């Protein structure tokens, strides 16, 4: 990610501080009638906390990477999704790291998960989902040289 993009994202996250900080309510059971829903930017909030555990392929659904985050209101299970995206950005999440995560609560079965769209640690941030909530792939991190190299794929 280009530094300018990182700064822009960091600025947006700072401005988001005016919004609600999601409490542990993200862990509460979702109302049944919310189970079929789409990502909605207007519902976005951010979490601030420290990483308790990072699991690149959790056995707990949704499939993919999860972070257990300790917030001031309790622990929240955050769905990161694509661990490869963090790796491609040389971005690690280790126990004790202080992070901010932009996202929103989405129904997942009989409970809810916090779907992360942006994760920030220090001055660095990585976008995990697009603005419609769909997970990004490592293809979104490729440099122009790497994209050009794909033309050699057969």
């Amino acid at each position, binding site marked *: 990610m280009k530094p300018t993009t990182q700064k822009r994202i960091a600025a947006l996250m700072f401005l988001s501080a005016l919004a609600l900080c999601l409490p542990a309510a993200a862990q509460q059971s979702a109302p*049944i*009638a*919310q*189970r*079929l*829903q*789409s*990502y*909605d*930017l*207007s519902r976005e909030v951010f979490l601030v906390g420290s990483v308790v555990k990072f699991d*690149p*392929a959790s*056995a*707990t*659904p*949704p*499939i*993919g*990477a999860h972070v257990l985050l300790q917030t001031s209101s309790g622990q929240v299970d955050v*769905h990161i*999704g*694509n*661990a*490869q*995206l963090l*790796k*491609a950005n040389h971005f690690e999440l280790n126990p004790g790291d202080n992070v901010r995560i932009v996202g929103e609560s*989405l129904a*997942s*079965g009989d409970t809810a*998960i916090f*779907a992360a769209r942006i994760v920030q640690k220090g001055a660095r941030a990585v976008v995990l*989902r*697009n603005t*419609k*909530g*769909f*997970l*990004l*792939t*490592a*293809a*979104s*991190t*490729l440099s122009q040289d*790497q*994209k*050009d*190299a*794909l*033309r*050699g*794929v*057969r």
Partner: protein
Amino acid sequence: MKRLLLLLASAAALWTAACNGGGGTVVPPPPPPGPFGLNSLNGTYAFVTNGEVFNGAAVTPLARVGSFTANGTGGITGGVEDVNSAGATGLATPITGGSYTVTGDGRGTLTLNLNSPGGATSINFAIVLTSNTDGLMIDETSTNTQTSTGSGNFVLQTGGPFTVASASGPYVFDFSGLDGTGAPDSIVGEFNASGGVITAGVQDENDNGNIPATPTPVSFTGVLAADPLDPNGAADLSNFGRGIATLNGINYVFYLVGGNRIRFLSTTGGEMLAGDAVAQNNTIPANTAALNTSFVLIVSGSSGAGGVTRVGRFTAHGASVTNVILDTNNAGVFHLTGGTGGGGAVTGASISLDAVNPGRGVVTFKDPTLAVPFTFVFYLSSASNGVIQDVSQGNQGATDVADGSLAAQTSGPFSSTNIAGTYALNWSGLSVQNGVADEEDFVGQATISNLGLTGAADTFQFQNGIVTDLVVGGSITAGGDGTGSGGARNTMSVKLTKNGSSTVNFVVYVANPGLAFFANNQGATRVVAGILKLQQ
């Protein structure tokens, strides 16, 4: 499976796993008996796969389309291939040779040698024949320049030598993949072809969840032509059915399978869209009142949680829809709509057919436990087949981007009496192996007798490597075709054994004794869907 389940792997681990092959040292069993052999693959076949590739830099989505000629004795004598990896294309690469094997059960291998700009290379597949004219395949390429996987199929090309006029009449299509920004995209629709001119095109697109408030088709035109940039353009069109197309402003390469099927792959604009157009015949119902059919359906794609599959069935009587059952696997979270054990009877179920766009329709139903109704757009290519796209409307656009197939459910009830014989299987999707979630592709063959399965298969998941000659066991539990008052459906358990064993559990929706759709309905570390097809 269609290819939107794109959680990607650890690149370093992938390279290691792929190079190791992961197969172990078990001595393969003797060739199984059966009617197939080298001469079962004889002619020119159009192939397509969708999956992903690792080229040393990153894991990216990959779609292939091409044509190869098999000589009936184990040799590949020519062909041509096009690829698109996340919008980067490699076009009209000549296939200079290769080889293949086929054992009695229809399983085998296929190697295609390529004369690519970077030098000679080859790509490898595991195959299983469903007949002498078609089969299923997975990409098992692992060379020093790339590792790739994906699921697809190949179909004998007939009716050549080809011209653009070989495409004639109305066609129904389903293209899916990624838009120019890398977001999931699905386009279903229909068009008319005549002399290379595309007219009367209409399509429904779900691009990154952006859909109209009510399903509304968009009109388009287009063209089919020989490829002026292909040094062998005229010969490739004549021999392999390869040409270029523009549909609704997007450029594609196409392969004519014959007059009844055309395979497309996008080539410009950064999109990676692939799919087939299938000739539409005159058996499609003329209006909603003429509908009197049970259908099974399968869609797969992307949701906000990751990969999603939906497989199910419904019965249409005019505008009324009954006996709705839908199994959803949303990134490892399972939900049953209707049926035994579901969240209650569906409401508001209805179906309609367009008055002006032949075969286009909308089916909708409401699960009482969900906030919004399920809504699907479909285009019928015949009275018994079609393509279908999920356009369920959430609060901010579609709940997911997913599409797939619709097939009439006939010849039920299904039991050990009529679900019997030798079947080809393929599934694709996402699984967690060795601690990493990544694409998983499976192709195999099984004999079904008294609802028990015995056979063999290959799988490829980058973290687990290529595993060949897995022993397939398991069983089908005949619960019902979904039309009974209890709404029971069938399930299948597949046990895979080689240096250990694992079991994958599925729900199975049988369209007819020759075809079934299935998706896993247990296990939070797998999201896969596939087909079971009787060998002919």
